[in-house]
C-alpha cells in the first residue's frame, strides 16, 4: 500500500511509527560505532519512559479531554509493585527480558487497578474534579510508599507500614521507607523501551480509530450531545483513563529498572507537571508532538549544562520561546510559504508530492 492510497490518519500514524523506528536505528548505529556520548546513552531509557508517559497522558488530556495532575502517581504505583516482582524473579532466573516483561505487566496491571479505583467515583462527575482528585492521589501514593517497608527472605515477602517491623533471616529490604527502592535489578534496556513505545503507540492509535475512540472523542467535544445519542459516559471515560494509567505503570517499571535506587518523592507533583508540559507543548491529541516534546525537553537540560548555574533559566526561556513560536501566525505564515515554495519545486520535478 503506498502512502497515497492510505487515508490521512493512517498515513500520519505510519509517519509516527517510522519516526520512532528510524530514531531507534540511528541511535543503535551510533552506539554500535561508539560515537554516542555516555551522557546521551545514559538518558536513552529515561527518554523512552518519558515518551510513554507523555503519550499515555495525552490519551487522558488530549483524547479524553480530562485534566490529570497525578500521572506520576500511576508511574510510582507501577514502578514500586513491578520492581518488587522483578526483585523476587531475579533470585530465580537470570533472563533479563523475561524479568522486565513480567514486572512491566504486573506494574501495568497494578497501575490500572489503582486508576480504576480513582476513576470510578470521579469520572462520573463533570468538571475539573479529576484534576483535583488525581493531584491528591499523587500525594497519597507518595505518602504511602514513603512509609512502606517490604523485605524479602527465604520464606517470602514481609511487609510493614509506617514503622519498620520487618524481621528477616538473611534477607534484603526491597522497599525501605524513605530510602525507597535500594536493590533494583537493572534489567531495563533501550530496546525494551523502544518496543514499549511502539506497543503503546499501536494501542493508542487503534483505540482512537475504533468505535470506542470515536465515542471518547465525542465525549470530549460535546458531552451532552454524546450522551443524547446513547454513549455511556462513565464507561468510555474509564476505558481511556485506565489504559492511560496502565501505560504509565509500565513506563514507571522501565524508568525505575534503569537506576540502582529510586525514591518515592521522585514521582511527585513536579514530575506530573513535567509530563503535562510535554503533552501541552507537543499538542493535545498529537502523539508525534508528545514524542518529540518529551525527547527534546528531557535532553535539553543536560545539553544546557555548559551554562552552569543559568541552566534552568535558559531552559525556561527556551520553553517560553517554543510555546510562543509554535503559535505565532507570522512565523507560521513564513514557514508555510517556504514549504509551499519547496513543494512547488518538487511537483515541478516529480509532480507527486501532494501532501
Amino acid at each position, binding site marked *: 500500500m503506498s502512502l497515497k492510497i492510505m487515508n490521512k490518519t493512517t498515513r500520519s500514524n505510519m509517519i509516527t511509527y517510522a519516526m520512532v523506528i528510524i530514531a531507534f536505528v540511528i541511535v543503535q548505529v551510533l552506539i554500535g560505532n561508539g560515537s554516542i556520548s555516555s551522557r546521551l546513552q*545514559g*538518558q536513552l531509557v529515561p527518554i523512552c519512559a518519558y515518551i510513554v508517559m507523555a503519550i499515555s497522558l495525552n490519551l487522558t488530556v488530549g483524547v479524553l479531554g480530562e485534566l490529570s495532575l497525578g500521572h506520576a502517581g500511576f508511574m510510582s504505583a507501577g514502578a514500586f509493585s513491578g520492581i518488587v516482582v522483578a526483585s523476587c524473579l531475579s533470585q530465580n532466573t537470570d533472563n533479563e527480558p523475561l524479568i522486565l516483561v513480567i514486572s512491566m505487566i504486573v506494574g501495568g496491571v497494578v497501575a490500572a487497578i489503582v486508576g480504576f479505583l480513582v476513576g470510578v467515583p470521579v469520572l462520573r462527575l463533570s468538571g475539573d474534579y479529576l484534576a483535583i482528585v488525581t493531584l491528591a492521589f499523587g500525594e497519597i501514593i507518595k505518602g504511602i510508599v514513603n512509609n512502606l517497608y517490604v523485605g524479602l527472605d527465604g520464606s517470602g515477602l514481609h511487609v510493614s507500614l509506617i514503622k519498620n517491623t520487618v524481621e528477616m533471616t538473611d534477607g534484603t529490604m526491597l522497599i525501605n521507607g524513605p530510602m525507597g527502592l535500594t536493590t533494583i535489578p537493572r534489567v531495563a534496556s533501550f530496546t525494551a523501551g523502544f518496543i514499549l513505545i511502539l506497543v503503546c503507540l499501536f494501542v493508542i492509535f487503534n483505540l482512537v480509530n475504533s468505535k470506542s475512540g470515536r465515542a471518547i472523542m465525542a465525549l470530549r467535544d460535546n458531552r451532552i450531545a454524546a450522551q443524547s445519542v446513547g454513549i455511556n459516559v462513565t464507561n468510555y471515560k474509564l476505558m481511556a483513563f485506565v489504559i492511560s494509567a496502565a501505560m504509565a505503570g509500565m513506563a514507571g517499571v522501565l524508568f525505575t529498572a534503569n*537506576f540502582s535506587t529510586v525514591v518515592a518523592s521522585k514521582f511527585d507533583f513536579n514530575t506530573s507537571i513535567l509530563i503535562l508540559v510535554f503533552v501541552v507543548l507537543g499538542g493535545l491529541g498529537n502523539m508525534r*508532538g508528545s514524542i518529540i516534546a518529551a525527547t527534546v525537553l528531557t535532553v535539553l537540560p543536560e545539553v*544546557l*549544562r555548559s551554562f*552552569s548555574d543559568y541552566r534552568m533559566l535558559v531552559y525556561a526561556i527556551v520553553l517560553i520561546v517554543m510555546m510562543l*513560536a509554535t503559535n*505565532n501566525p507570522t512565523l507560521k505564515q513564513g*514557514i508555510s510559504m517556504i514549504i509551499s515554495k519547496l513543494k512547488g519545486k518538487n511537483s515541478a520535478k516529480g509532480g507527486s508530492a501532494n501532501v
Partner: protein
Amino acid sequence: MKMKTKKKLALGLVLTMGLTMFAGCGNGGDAKTDDTAATDGAAAIKIGGTGPLTGGASIYGIAVKQGAEIAVAEVNAEGGLQFELKMEDDAHDAEKAVNAYNTLKDWGMQISLNSVTSIPASATAAENFNDRIFGLTPSGSAPDVTKDKDNVYQMCFSDPNQGTASAQYISEQKLGTKIAVIYKNDDPYSAGIYAKFMEEADALGLEVVSEGTFTTDSQNDFSVQLSDAKNAGADLLFLPIYYDAASLILTQANNMGYAPKFFGVDGMDGILALEGFDTALAEGVMLLTPFSADAEDEATKNFVAKYQEKYGEVPNQFAADAYDCIYALYQACNNAGVTADMTAEEINDLMIEQFSTMEFEGLTTGGAVATWNEAGEISKVPQGMVIQNGAYVGM
C-alpha cells in the same frame, strides 16, 4: 497534515536558533567559573563530582564545591601532582545525578567525588562500581552508598553510626531521662539515624516518651510535635535533622516557653551561620559533628581563613569533608605513584589498595588518625560539641 508539519518545523527552527545563540556565550565563561584548572598547564588528574548546586539542598553542594576548590588550589600550588576539579549540578535528584555523572565521564573524569547527598550518591555509586571509577563521597552518608561496592569510600561517618553514637552519648553523659524525638520521615538521612537511635536507646534503657515526624511539605510548623513533647514531659529533645528545620523548632519551642535540652547530629552544624536566626536560641544546644570551625589547630585555622577570604562565610562540615577528600586522594595518589596519564580503571585499582590500608589525618578526623574498613566506611569518631556564646565547645 500541513499544520502539523509547520508546527514541527517552527519548533525545530526556534530550538536550533535558541541553542546556537546561547551556546556561544556559555562555553567562554564556563572554564573560569567551574573548573579549577592546574596551575602550570601540566597534565592534571581529573576529579569530578556531582552535588546540588541549585535548588533547596544547594547549601550542601556549594559548600562541598568550595571546600574542594580550596584544597585543589593548595595541592596544585605545591607543584607536584596536579588536580583538575569539576562539579556538576544534580539538584538533589538521583536521575539528574546519573546524567551529571555521565557528563563528567564524557569530560574524562579519572577519580570521582561521587555525590554530595545520600540519594544521588547511592545512584552514582552504582555507576562508579560498574564503570570501575574510584569514588570517595564527601558526605553521602547512607549505608547504601558503599554497600557491596569495593571502590566507593566515605569521608563522612555513616548515618547508623550517628544514631548509635547519639544514644550512647546521651546515656553515658546522663543528659536526659525522658527523651522526645522529632525526625523527618521522608528523608533517608533523618529516618536512618532515627531507626538506629531507637534501637540503641532500647538497648541502653533510655526512655523515649514522644516521637514526632514531619515531611518536606510540612516543615514550617512544629507546634503539634512540640506540644506533644512538652505534654509528655520530655527534658531532652533529640533532633536528627538538618539545621534549617532545626532552627524553626528552636524558635517555635522558645515561643511556646518550652526549654528542654536540644541534642542534634552533624546536620545541625551550620545553624549558627543561618541568616535571620537568633543565635541566642541555640545556646546550650548539643550536637555531634566531625568538624568545628573554631578549632585551634593550624590546619583548621588555615582552611577557615582561606574559605572566609574567598567566599565570605564560615565553612561548615560539608566543606571540611570535601577538603579532606581532596587531601586523602592526594595522599593516596602520591603513595601509589598515580600519574595523570593513567586510565580511570588503573587508578581505581591503585586507590582501592591505598584506601583499604591508608591512614589519614585531616580536618574532620578530630586530631586522630582515621582508617577505612572493607565496606568503605571511615573510622572517625563523632565529637560531642555544645554551643556556648555562639561557638562550639567540646563536651
